[in-house]
């Protein structure tokens, strides 16, 4: 793809030593194709990734890999919780009240609440978002989240959902799992028929990822 001998690749003046070293390095370039065994191994990895992706889209949240500590922290709730599938998104029914809170509630540490995590007829959901499929995940998730700007009477989150509060900004904010980690999904106020959705880091509200969708 590149010519190692191309003179315009580097405008640095070379000392004679540097010039010799560059020639020796160019001569030691690896031109061999990827060995067959490595190619086969990586193809297997790709197959596993594709299978994992299919499983995620088919909603098998209990099999989702998490860091060990998180897996333990979630274990009790996960065993008790019923996994529900809405629109192809894997969702966890973890707490009895609505998952969303107003973004204007800056004090909302999502771990607050202390309510029992018992599924009920009005189970809310904890969307799982993934960076690789963020737009599609968010599109499906917003279907089941409270409407934009809806402010609940109190912040709601599952008792085991650990997410330090921060200044989430305007719009509505919802607890989510993002690439296996707790995060907040902020649905910004719509403007000009569009609505920005931002995944915010717990404790800092740093934007981890964002997509813009048609306004609901």
């Amino acid at each position, binding site marked *: 793809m590149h010519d190692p001998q191309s003179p315009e690749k580097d405008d640095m003046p070379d000392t004679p030593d540097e010039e010799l070293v560059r020639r020796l390095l160019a001569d*030691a370039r690896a031109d061999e194709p990827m060995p067959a065994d490595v190619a086969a191994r990586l193809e297997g990895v790709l197959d596993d990734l594709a299978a994992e992706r299919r499983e995620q889209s088919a909603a098998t949240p209990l099999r989702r890999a998490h860091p060990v500590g998180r897996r333990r922290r979630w274990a009790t709730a996960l065993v008790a919780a019923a996994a529900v599938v809405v629109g192809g998104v894997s969702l966890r029914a973890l707490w009895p009240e609505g998952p969303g809170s107003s973004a204007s509630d800056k004090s909302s540490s999502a771990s607050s609440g202390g309510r029992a995590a018992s599924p009920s007829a009005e189970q809310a959901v904890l969307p799982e978002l993934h960076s690789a499929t963020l737009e599609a995940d968010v599109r499906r998730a917003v279907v089941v989240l409270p409407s934009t700007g809806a402010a609940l009477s109190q912040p709601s989150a599952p008792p085991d959902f650990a997410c330090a509060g921060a200044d989430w900004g305007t719009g509505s904010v919802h607890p989510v799992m993002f690439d296996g980690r707790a995060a907040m999904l902020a649905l910004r106020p719509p403007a000009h028929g569009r609505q920005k959705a931002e995944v915010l880091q717990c404790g800092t509200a740093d934007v981890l990822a964002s997509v813009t969708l048609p306004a609901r």
Partner: protein
Amino acid sequence: MTDRADGRPDRELLAAHVAGDRDAFAELFARHRDRLWAVALRTMGNPEDAADGLQDALVAAYRRAGTFRGDAAVSTWLHRVVVNACVDRLRAASVRRTTALADDHDAPLPAAAADASDPALAAERSDQRRLVLAALGELPADQRAALVLVDMEGMPVLEAAAVLDVPLGTLKSRCSRGRARLAVLLRDAGVLDPVPPVAAEGNQQPLPPVPSADPPARAPPG
């Protein structure tokens, strides 16, 4: 490297993968895998670690494809993911600095095979390459990665800086320091000619001429 006559452009493949296309990423990876392998191999120093680094990168790229901002070529982004994975491994494991004589380097090298008509020359080149790779393995990971991209892969410095996500000046500095260190190592190994001795004070003997003092002649730009 984003427009391809032999299929969908790289960006299209990446976007298709993010949108859920099951085959797009495999096609994209297959398109670049040999050069990515070369970068991983030369950065890590041996095939086993290179395969591990490339696997890390493959998983990261697959899962983080949605974070590709489109401000660089997809191939640049892929190289960045691979180099980062390899450098992370080198740093985390504090890989033995003397890995350069690993299996890969013991095998006959293709360039040497090309000199088969002159077995003596082929052996000399093979030995020389082995020493060069051993010396490369002595460099800090960031310098090694810079030289692999610029001097081995022939990547323009601007693109190499983008791959390594460093300012251009930093990239040039890494290259310069890496080459200077390599020159010392290769001189010690006998690959480069020794530096002529500096005359001691009071030495009345005239110094021999130093033919290499001037920059090497360059071909005029085409």
